[in-house]
């Protein structure tokens, strides 16, 4: 089976979707990322990543209610799917495993 991997931005967006828990749509995701990483992203990039993640089956979407500030248009809310959760866990495990292997020496120094 082809192993599905995700890129750095995809991972970030996926984590944001998970952490926003039910309130995740493009604009809030953008804000969460900005808040945590100080990275100012383009909303179109978020859209593109969201479409990709949905195609891969890591997130699912539902249309929410209309709001006035969007000209009466509905929001599309995203939630993390089982597969999405799994891929996040795997990524984390890989990172932590590798992180633990870093020799302490380098960081503590010789003194």
């Amino acid at each position, binding site marked *: 089976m082809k192993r599905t991997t995700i890129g750095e931005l995809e991972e970030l967006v996926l984590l944001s979707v998970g952490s926003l828990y039910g309130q995740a749509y493009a604009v809030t995701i*953008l804000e969460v990322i900005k808040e945590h990483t100080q990275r100012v992203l383009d909303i179109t990039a978020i859209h593109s990543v969201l*479409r990709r993640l949905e195609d891969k089956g890591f997130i699912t979407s539902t249309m929410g209610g209309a709001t006035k*500030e*969007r000209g009466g*248009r509905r929001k599309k809310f995203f939630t993390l799917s089982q597969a999405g959760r799994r891929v996040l866990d795997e990524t984390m495990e890989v990172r932590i495993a590798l992180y633990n292997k870093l020799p302490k020496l380098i960081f503590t120094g010789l003194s």
Partner: protein
Amino acid sequence: MINHQPPKWADRFLEWYCNPDLLEDLQGDLYEVFYHKLDQGNPLQARLYYLWLVIRSFRYSAIKRNSKLKNTTLMMTKSNLRIALRILKNNKFYTGLNLAGLAIGITCFFLTGFYVKQELSYDQFHAKKDRIYRVWLKEIYSDDKVFFSSTTPLLFETFLEDNFDEFETAVQVDHNNYLVGSGTNRINENVGVVSPEIFKVFDFKIEKGNKENLLQGKRDLVLSASYAKKYFGEDTAIGEALPIEIQGEIIDFIVTGVFGDIPKESSISFDMAISNENNIDLYDPRALNHWFQIRTETYVLVGENSHISNVEATIGDVVMNLIGDRVNEGEYNIGFQPLTDIHLNTDIPVGRAPVGNPSYVAILGVISLLVLVTACINYATLSVCQSLKRTKEVGVRKVMGAQRKSLIHQYLSETFLIIVVAFALALGLTYLSLPVFNELTNADVRIDFELWHIGLYLGLIIIVGLTSGIYPAIVLSRQGATQIFRGSGGARGKQYLRKGMVVFQFLITVFLISSTLIMRKQLNYMQNKDMGIEYKATVSVPLYRDPATRSLADAIRTAMEKGELLKEKLSLYPEVSDIGMGSHVFGDPGWATFSYTDDTQTFREFRIVAVDPHYLNTFDIKIKKGKGFDPESELDKRQSIILNEAAVKHFGLKDPIGNQLPGNKFGNHSIIGLAEDFNYSSLHNAIEPLIITQNVQPILEGTDDVNFSDSPIPKLVFRYSGSELSKVQDILEKEWKQVLPEEELNFSFIEENMRAQYANENRMNRLLSVATVLSIVIACLGLLGLTVLVVKGKEKEIGIRKVIGASESSIFKLLISSFSWQLLLGVFLSIPFTYWLMNDWLKDFAYRIDLSIDLFALGGIISIVIALITITFHTLKASMMNPADIIRSE
């Protein structure tokens, strides 16, 4: 608060491209960001940002892939192509024929097209080409004495620069042969003598060295990349010294620059060049300031805001101001020829570079087009004939509601599909056949590719597609559905256009065959014509003058002295005989021309050859009256001359023997013999007056003007009777080293040189032959297809005729006759066409064949025979079939 909205048109754009499933959410998000931005302040910024986001959202994943975008044209094209593919697959025979015909036609078009393009691209690579002109000089005197030349006096460079503000600069370009290198390995090289500014006027690529100060010094030298490699290997040549012998003095020149090899398509060409500051040493001071001695090519660069016509208008007056005491109004004319005009304009004399023949380029261009047209016609006729079988298909389509437009569309798709494939095939074929083509035609054609060529190719595909496809498409879609199903749709009209096309195609083929035959006959005639001389197995070896000599007579004398030494050695070999020497030999164009005005003020011009006493014997030149040179006679050596018949006529001498040439300025000389006319240049020209002498000095004294394009330094000639031609080289190399160790040995067979004079015609003939063969192949493919179709269409008729009792031969005749009048008409129509074009071509030759009827007849017969062979097989098969097989199945 004003109610700000995102820009309407940006919204509309978003709504247009966006996948509707995504639109609501995407647009909503963008709105949200927009209002957010708006809250922060500047509405303009917010609007711009919104626009930016809309543009950024234009990604593949967001673009709609729904049915709206697929309009009918696109959809039908897809389906049309699919159907076309099926039809083509089902008719493998016709698809094959069509593909082959078109591919061959396009290949032919490519090959000749590349050749023509190369000829047309001469000197086009200079950025300032439109401002560069070559200067010509035309002196017109009374009594028809005209000197017209594109080499000009040395003083023109400064004269033009000083007197005309319109010119940014003027440059000289000249060539001379010098011995280059040191010790025993010196090579006789052609060295450019040029103005230093040449690199600012022309775009020759400088690879090493500073473009600004190349050739600034008198002893500076520039080399082409390949020559830098030849002399200095991989090392950097800059700063190295290279000895060149100039006027008897060996001078070290320092390499200051290396330029990329000058492309073949350049009228100015050299591999090494020195500054024209050296002219002081090359010419005597009088020549440097002489208005009537022509030496070099002069090019001018017109300033960006100036126009050459300003100069042309005033130059006459300026010249008269300067030399009005020596010439009359209208006698001394200076003109300017655009740089890009040089290669293919035969009205202005040839300068330093050989020029092409514009009529050959035109003929080739026309021929390649004709062959392409034959291929298109082929396709059209075949498709129209085939359409008989497809009337039902058209009917069904029409019943289903197909418009005529969409039917045309469909047939054109078929055509284009075939043409695109044929085009790809042709590209491959061209690539593969290019080496063979170059070999065959002696051309040096290359395929080069630039991005804009894609457009050209697409254009070609569309043009070829429309020419070959539009007629069948119209014919096919013409009929009404009811007609077809009622059964009256089968035979439609007399198909004059279709038959006309067959005639036209045949006309072209016959024209090409006859032209090839005529050209070949003319070439054979020229190469086999009795020239009045014997030159079989004769070798010519250029000698070298003593470098210290300055006058022409001395140069000839010193070279002959060296020749005598070589002759002594060579005469010991039994296979070498008839050794002689002469300043010019046969096969070299441009024998020296002398001219003067005699006492009766008549302008006289003649050619002259300086020889040793054995030269006439070597070439078996017959003496008609008087006697030849006596090797023992000192008098002959000093002052005897021999005239040819043309010279006697030219000078109007009644009793030439013992007399002198008219005019009183010559040194002591007397005419001792009269030689039979023999042809010493190519048969393009008539025989001109010629004087044969052992000593040019007395004649030189009385001449005003000397002109030669062949080097007047003598050549040693001898007949070689050995069985192995390769041994000539061994003998010559061995003896040459002993006599002239420092010079380079060159030798050639005169027969080869004679043939080389007709290289242009030979190449043309070969090109034409290639085109002819290809067009025959195409025409045969077409005929074959037509025959098969016609036979198919008449199968029932043949069957019934046979049942009633027709013989096989009468059926055969019936079938053949349906083509024969078209073939015959093609043959007849081609005759005047061919006659007119070939007559024009033959005008170039002083000696030419007559255009007799047998050549046309032969061309016609050949084409008819080929055509009959092509169609006979199928017609025979049809006439011999069993009628029961056909009629039974209905």
